[in-house]
């Protein structure tokens, strides 16, 4: 490979990395909110699937990507409401409920897909890259950064907004306190359960959006299990990002890079590694990530524990 080809390869790689990181960015930032309030939602995978399906079904009915995205968010939040009801109100074990929601999400979406869509095989129009005058035409940089669709660009906005809300508003402060010392929040007269509901709804709404991106901004079809573990990888991203939204953005980009590398090396004829090795890359890197980060460090101290009012 000469220098010019390598640069083109690199530019395409970086563009693809951001695109492939997008669902992870949404889901992991959402999970940051949820976990900062003390709620560990391992049902993220099922939630993303629901978002992906709702987005796909709505967009194919209305023809509008925007309405599809909204449906994805709402679908995710509906699932989140179920999760919150069981973990916050009923105070059931968060891991057990999360596992149930994964089964439910997988089953429901596959059931509905097979009942209504599988025979039609119809795809939808996905969000197209926007052409930004001058920037999109730049050599190298244009391909790498400025030929994405609006959903991909919106990850920056979401990251900044999430950081502002979490660190610069009284809502964010209280939300973080709920995860560290819920009793203090309770004594101060704020509603612990209410904040946890809000955090879970924000989290699952974003997870639904991440799922919807898969069917509306990436592939034009719903496929059973289309998330292929992204919900679980997002959990690891949150740990690596030390529960910070900006951290989650950059760690997701790193994982996007693994996904992109995998896809592009598979297409590269000169690579002799079996494609399964590349396929396993994101999963292996997730485990490596957890080893490198070592332990909980900055985890919210009440993560995973229901709050009992005394």
């Amino acid at each position, binding site marked *: 490979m000469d220098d010019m080809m390598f640069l083109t390869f690199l530019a395409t790689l970086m563009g693809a990395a951001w695109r492939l990181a997008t669902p992870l960015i949404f889901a992991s930032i959402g999970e940051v909110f949820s976990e900062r309030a003390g709620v560990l939602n*391992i049902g993220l995978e099922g939630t993303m699937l629901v978002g992906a399906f709702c987005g796909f079904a709505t967009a194919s009915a209305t023809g509008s990507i925007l309405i599809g995205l909204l449906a994805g968010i709402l679908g995710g939040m509906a699932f989140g409401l*179920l999760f919150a009801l*069981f973990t916050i109100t*009923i*105070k*059931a*074990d968060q*891991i*057990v*409920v999360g*596992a*149930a*929601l*994964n*089964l*439910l*999400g*997988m*089953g*429901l979406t*596959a*059931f*509905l897909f*097979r*009942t209504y869509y599988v025979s039609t095989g119809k795809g939808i129009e996905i969000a197209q890259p926007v052409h930004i005058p001058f920037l999109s035409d730049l050599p190298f940089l244009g391909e790498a950064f400025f030929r994405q669709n609006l959903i991909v660009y919106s990850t920056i906005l979401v990251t900044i907004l999430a950081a502002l809300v979490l660190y610069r508003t009284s809502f964010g402060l209280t939300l973080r306190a709920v995860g560290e010392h819920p009793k203090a929040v309770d004594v101060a007269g704020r509603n612990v359960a209410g904040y946890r509901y809000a955090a879970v709804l924000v989290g699952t709404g974003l997870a639904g959006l991440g799922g919807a991106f898969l069917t509306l901004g990436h592939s034009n079809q719903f496929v*059973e299990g289309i998330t*292929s*573990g992204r919900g*679980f*990888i997002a*959990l*690891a991203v949150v*740990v690596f990002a030390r529960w910070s939204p900006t951290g989650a953005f950059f760690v997701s980009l790193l994982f996007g890079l693994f996904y992109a590398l995998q896809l592009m090396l598979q297409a590269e004829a000169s690579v002799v590694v*079996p494609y*399964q*090795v590349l*396929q*396993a890359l994101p*999963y*292996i890197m*997730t*485990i490596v990530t*957890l*080893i490198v980060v*070592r*332990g*909980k460090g900055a985890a919210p101290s009440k993560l995973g524990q229901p709050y009992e009012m005394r």
Partner: protein
Amino acid sequence: MEQVNQGVRETVYPQAAHTFYRKLSQIALSAVTPIAAVSVALACGAVLLWLNGFNGLDAITVMVFGSFQDMRAVGEILLKATPLILIGAGLCVAFRCSIWNIGAEGQLYAGAIAATLVGTSLDGLSVWIHAPLVMLAGALAGAAWAGIAGYLKVRFRASEIVTTIMLNYIALILTSYLVTGPMKDASAAYPQSARLVREAWTPRIVSDMRLHIGILIAVVLAVALYIFLQRSSRGFALRVVGLNPHAARYAGMDVARNVMVAICISGAMAGLAGAFEVAGVTHRLYQNISPGYGFEGIAVALLANNNPLAAILSGGLFATLRSGSEVLQITSQVPQVLVLVIQGIVILSVVAFAKLRDILRIVA
């Protein structure tokens, strides 16, 4: 002396009868939650079907009773119950120790791979040696695959929820690599391994039915795990670690060791299940050898309230529903994945009913 004995007998026997009845009513009471949970889940399934234009009531009836056509059909149910009981009972041990092993699916595949290796490579052994060797290989591989997650947890505090799930994907990809590459049967068009030699096959119970002795082994092992958890000191330690690791450490228990034991037991059971799928059912390794038994096993364990003995029943129940859903797909075109929805709702209702019982107990 005689009189004293007489007196003892009179007081002891009524008491024994009393404890027997109390035990019986306890068992009856503990059966209320799972029965109610399954009923709710089936009702939800019926509503879901009705909403989507199917005849919900008929469909659920088929799902529950449709697979009991003849002895052969019952044999097929037991065949499906085998991996579910093995995995469910194993997960009971892990969950009791508060290890969230979500990776039984991957451990099943690890066991299936090892069983295939042993079952295709050695030749000329007696069935008395080769068949057990295949099972042993499966169990060891499953334990090792789970052990990776266990080691990462005790050494690096890596969440076993995430690592076991990642190991699921890696095991599946590894299997796909093996059956399309190094272990592929060169004469076959479809990606599959060579056939296991006949001596490696798990013996059947009746020669003209697919049901093999795995179901008996599964039941025996589930009983053994129950005794292990309830009666052995290691089992006690596992439960203490699960309830409160700090207390366990303070009491001088080796938490890391107990975590490893618990996760490896659950992995070995899943690995054995994988070995049975290869050596008892398909006799070859395929990419999709499990239809999600590893995930279904989680529901089996939770419905059994993490009691390996009860996992025999809940495994049988889930196998019945799975067989019924296959009948349903053929007769009424209801997608078989409905089973996943039912599993999810079963878990949620178990949780809800358990809480309801707690509340009622406090009120009463």
